[in-house]
């Protein structure tokens, strides 16, 4: 293992992480909801009366973030290697997997670990291990 110093961004990543935690705190302490993105989006696909507006609003806020950050001069240039087929397979796995597993990086990884949930710890270790194994196979084996 070597460290990728060229791309390593400890301070902006720590600050961005704190902002994510602050957003989760806002949603929890003001609206009483857990900021799990897959759960919020999934709930829109099985809508229940009185449970739709806050979900749409949260997703709307997420979608408005790039424009707001652009106003602050914060752009982002993503590096994406995946082709069409890989994106489709990956998207299907992420959509179905987060539904069956009841959460993703935000719901289990951030909120679940923040509330010291053993269920979320198991889920986080499972998706991290699977992610590491997948990248290992794709980059160093195939």
């Amino acid at each position: 293992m070597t460290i990728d110093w060229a791309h390593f961004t400890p301070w902006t990543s720590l600050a961005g992480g704190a902002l994510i935690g602050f957003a989760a705190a806002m949603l929890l302490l003001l609206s009483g909801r857990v900021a799990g993105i897959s759960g919020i989006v999934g709930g829109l696909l099985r809508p229940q009366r009185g449970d739709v507006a806050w979900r749409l609003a949260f997703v709307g806020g997420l979608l408005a973030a790039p424009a707001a950050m652009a106003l602050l001069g914060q752009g982002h240039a993503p590096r994406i290697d995946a082709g069409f087929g890989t994106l489709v397979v990956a998207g299907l796995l992420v959509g179905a997997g987060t539904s069956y597993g009841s959460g993703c990086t935000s719901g289990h990884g951030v909120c679940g670990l923040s509330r010291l949930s053993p269920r979320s710890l198991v889920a986080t270790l499972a998706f991290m291990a699977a992610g590491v194994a997948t990248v290992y196979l794709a980059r160093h084996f195939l």
Partner: protein
Amino acid sequence: MNALLALAAGLVFGAGLILSGMTDPGKVIGFLDVAGNWDPSLAFVMAGAIVVGFFAFRSAGRRGRTFLGGALHLPNRRDIDARLIGGSVAFGIGWGLAGFCPGPALVSLASGVDQAAVFVAAMLSGMVVYTAAERLR
């Protein structure tokens, strides 16, 4: 009121994802690539988010209500079963393949990244498949 607060929370959440670098799949895969040229940044994102989140959840747990007097909607499941682990493993494989998880994918979709549009369409399809399968159970 709740919708306005949720909008603000979503905006801050998305800003955090962009600032942290998590909307760059190359950075996510760089973190998962522990055997190669490793970018530890994502660990710092998690650490920053969890430290702030820990105090928020502790405060919410002690109060039992929101600051506005509303109810807390917290998950109450504690079971660790095959669905939790199998689903999380499937999610991890998809995450490792493309470098997108749900939040950053939605943010990238809004930035006009074509690949994110493909990924989000497939992700929503995966969620629809789950919803349909659950109805049949």
